[in-house]
């Protein structure tokens, strides 16, 4: 028989005014298993706690029920207290007779009856409590940041500055991401390269940061504190250990193929650096366009390389490393508008650019050295139409969400055109202008005053007439159709999650929202965490945002990583699922329902009669299980149960109420 001690708190008058504490104590004494019952003014106070400790000692109690305020208030307090006693901290139940009884009822007799019932339920549950022991897992003090854009760079630098090792992984041959492509940044118009390249160099040179460019994650195992991540380094065909980045090979390569960095606005050789300021500042060979690798002839780069860095036999290599924390910083891509918007020509007209193409066009280090000219004929445009919300706010053809940054960079593009080509007519077609940010509204205001013509209406059709691009729309403020004969059109297209995010998210068991952005653990209170312990979010992988928000988000993620890595080990809650192997039929229902991929089917040797058989049974990974108990409700045989909230315990509570 268990020896339960029941302690009823007055909470000053908070409880005692509405609940007859003495009656409650008297009735508790009658309950089976109760060895002692008492009351006190403030159970949570020093003397109150001492009283409990003394009673445990004196009456040899093995479990404790405290009737007081909500367990959300003092459960941890009392657990801590029990650590110094013979009673296991998890052999504790709290009857909530304040928030859920004395505060919400007025009739003292009825409230007392209810308090008695609540205590009865807790005692019944406590009788089935069992000792539980929090385990701790060691933490590998290294972080993996996936994605080398500004979010990844910022997170890596912050974590590295705090003294932890970081691997910064990027699938392209250079870090830098989208920000490296931009010309100027709103609303201050400082040059994007001038503020991002120093960060790239810092990341490249930081003693705590290891760059993993041309790398992709292929597999991951483990959990918070101990992720074993298998990474593939795609073949570079250039030995970066000896390459000095002199660039001779690039100038001699005979191949010309579309530059991905310039979004097809210029050509690059097959052996190339992504862009001149690339970090690492060493070239790689693109195996899809290299003549030697595709057709077996050429080999010019090998001949001209003074150091013999070229290695056509290079192969993809896989390696596995352990990390304590993961940061997703996988960023965004622009939606492929050409497949969606036939009414805009579906990509048939070369003088229609996306926002990022325009960034390259207007960028001093871009294909035209910053001259705004039409890709088709190299002429300066006299009239430019900027179309916002292409693919955004369009549930039918594109995405239902607002891409957040476009209103501001559309204004920036207008400003840049008016600045570089005074006298140009710039029309901005918009549905709403959204400028929530420091200095943003002022920037929009200035752009308007500088002469950008804002037309409220979504463009309906764009087609070519001679060398003009005709934009048909409605000026909804006038209620009249408008037709703009533009020389160039800039489409501010929607941000979408980077390709490959699906596989990566699935690998780590991280959830995605309806639009495939990574789902944060809580939209307000846990914006940089995922629901998987140890996996954090930085930047646009979580949703569209601009650079200031991205950097803030990345630093927040870094702070979370640092606070995790600062511990050498982590205590895990013992209230997790357990499997009674002999009852498990291996149906896998629990595996399917588990939101944390904490349950796997594992094969065990078993006997059926005299026969040895192999059969699958569920197995819970204690590092991944968060104790939600969904599996227990799904289990058909009742083989899986939740410690601390066992089926039997809850049923006892139910029975105790119905007595």
């Amino acid at each position: 028989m268990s020896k339960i001690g029941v302690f009823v708190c007055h909470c000053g008058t908070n409880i005692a005014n509405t609940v007859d504490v003495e009656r409650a104590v008297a009735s508790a004494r009658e309950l089976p298993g109760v060895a002692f019952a008492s009351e006190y003014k403030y159970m949570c106070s020093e003397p109150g706690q001492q009283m409990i400790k003394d009673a445990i000692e004196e009456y040899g109690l093995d479990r404790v029920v405290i009737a007081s305020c909500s367990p959300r208030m003092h459960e941890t307090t009392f657990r801590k207290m029990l650590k110094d006693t013979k009673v296991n901290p998890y052999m504790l139940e709290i009857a909530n007779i304040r928030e859920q009884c004395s505060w919400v009822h007025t009739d003292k007799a009825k409230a007392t009856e209810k308090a008695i019932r609540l205590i009865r339920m807790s005692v019944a549950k406590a009788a089935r409590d069992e000792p539980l022991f929090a385990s701790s897992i060691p933490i590998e003090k290294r972080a993996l940041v996936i994605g080398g854009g500004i979010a990844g760079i910022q997170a890596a630098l912050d974590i590295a500055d705090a003294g932890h090792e970081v691997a910064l992984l990027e699938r392209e041959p250079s870090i830098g991401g989208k920000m490296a492509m931009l010309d100027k940044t709103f609303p201050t118009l400082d040059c994007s390269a001038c503020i991002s390249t120093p960060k790239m160099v810092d990341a490249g040179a930081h003693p705590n940061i290891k760059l993993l460019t041309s790398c992709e994650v292929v597999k991951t195992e483990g959990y918070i504190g101990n992720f074993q991540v298998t990474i593939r380094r795609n073949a570079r065909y250039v030995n970066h250990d000896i390459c000095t980045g002199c660039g001779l090979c690039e100038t001699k390569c005979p191949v010309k193929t579309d530059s991905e960095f310039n979004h097809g606005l210029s050509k690059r050789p097959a052996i190339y650096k992504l862009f001149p300021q690339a970090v690492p500042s060493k070239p790689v060979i693109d195996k899809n366009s290299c003549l030697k690798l595709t057709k077996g002839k050429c080999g010019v780069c090998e001949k001209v390389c003074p150091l013999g860095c070229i290695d056509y036999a290079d192969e993809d290599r896989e390696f596995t490393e352990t990390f304590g924390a993961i940061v997703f910083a996988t960023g965004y891509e622009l939606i492929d508008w050409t497949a969606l918007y036939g009414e805009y020509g579906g990509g048939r007209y070369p003088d229609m650019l996306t926002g990022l193409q325009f960034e390259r066009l207007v960028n001093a280090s871009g294909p035209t050295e910053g001259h705004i000219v039409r890709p088709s004929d190299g002429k300066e445009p006299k009239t430019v139409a900027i179309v916002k919300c292409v693919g955004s706010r369009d549930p039918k053809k594109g995405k239902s969400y607002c891409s957040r940054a476009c209103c501001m960079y559309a204004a920036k593009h207008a400003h840049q055109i008016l600045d570089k080509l005074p006298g140009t007519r710039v029309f901005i077609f918009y549905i709403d202008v959204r400028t929530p940010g420091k200095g943003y509204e002022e920037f929009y205001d200035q752009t308007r005053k500088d002469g950008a013509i804002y037309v409220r209406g979504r463009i309906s059709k764009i087609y070519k007439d001679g060398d003009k691009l005709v934009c048909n729309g409605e000026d909804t403020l006038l209620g009249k159709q408008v037709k703009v004969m533009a020389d160039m059109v800039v489409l501010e297209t929607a941000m979408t999650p980077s390709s490959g995010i699906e596989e990566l998210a699935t690998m780590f068991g991280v959830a995605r929202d309806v639009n495939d952005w990574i789902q944060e653990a809580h939209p307000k209170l846990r914006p940089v965490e995922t629901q998987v312990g140890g996996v954090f979010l930085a930047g646009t992988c979580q949703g569209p945002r601009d650079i200031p928000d991205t950097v803030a988000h990345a630093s927040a993620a870094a702070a979370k990583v640092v606070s995790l890595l600062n511990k050498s080990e982590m205590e895990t809650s013992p209230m997790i699922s357990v499997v009674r192997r002999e009852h498990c039929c291996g149906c896998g229902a629990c595996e399917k329902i588990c939101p944390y991929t904490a349950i796997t089917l594992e094969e065990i040797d078993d006997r059926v009669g005299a026969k040895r058989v192999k059969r699958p049974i569920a197995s819970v990974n204690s590092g991944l299980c968060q104790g939600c108990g969904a599996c227990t409700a799904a289990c058909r045989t009742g083989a899986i149960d939740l410690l601390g909230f066992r089926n039997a315990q809850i049923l006892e509570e139910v029975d105790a109420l119905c007595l």
Partner: protein
Amino acid sequence: MSVKETNDPKIIAFCCNWCTYTGADLAGLNRSHYPENVHIVRVPCSGRVNPQFILRAFRNGCDGVMVCGCHPGDCHYSTGNYFTRRRFTLMKRLLEYNGIDPGRFHARWISGSEAGKFRDTAEEVTAMVRKLGPNTRYREYARREMSADE
């Protein structure tokens, strides 16, 4: 021992720790008043609530059962309450089949900030269950079983 013959119903409310239990605590903090009939059992997630718990409650003569959790999409454990939703649409039918008025069973989404909604729900369910009268369906059965236990 027997189930009391009274029209003061006993209602059990399985509340998830993260949303509804917090909401009920907040109702207390706000000193919102609701009937004494509602008794909360704390569970980590509404997805933890095994249909067996509900059947047991009704068998034992409990007059009403509530299962409350986070709003769909807000589950602390990301997906638990979706399962709750599906499971308890079926539950209603099962109860009906067993001769229990489905009006005795309610699944509701109440967030940690919705103290008012918790109070309203508690009042509403109590009123509805009171109208249905005591749950005597399994009384004989339960009584026999209990005396056999003793």
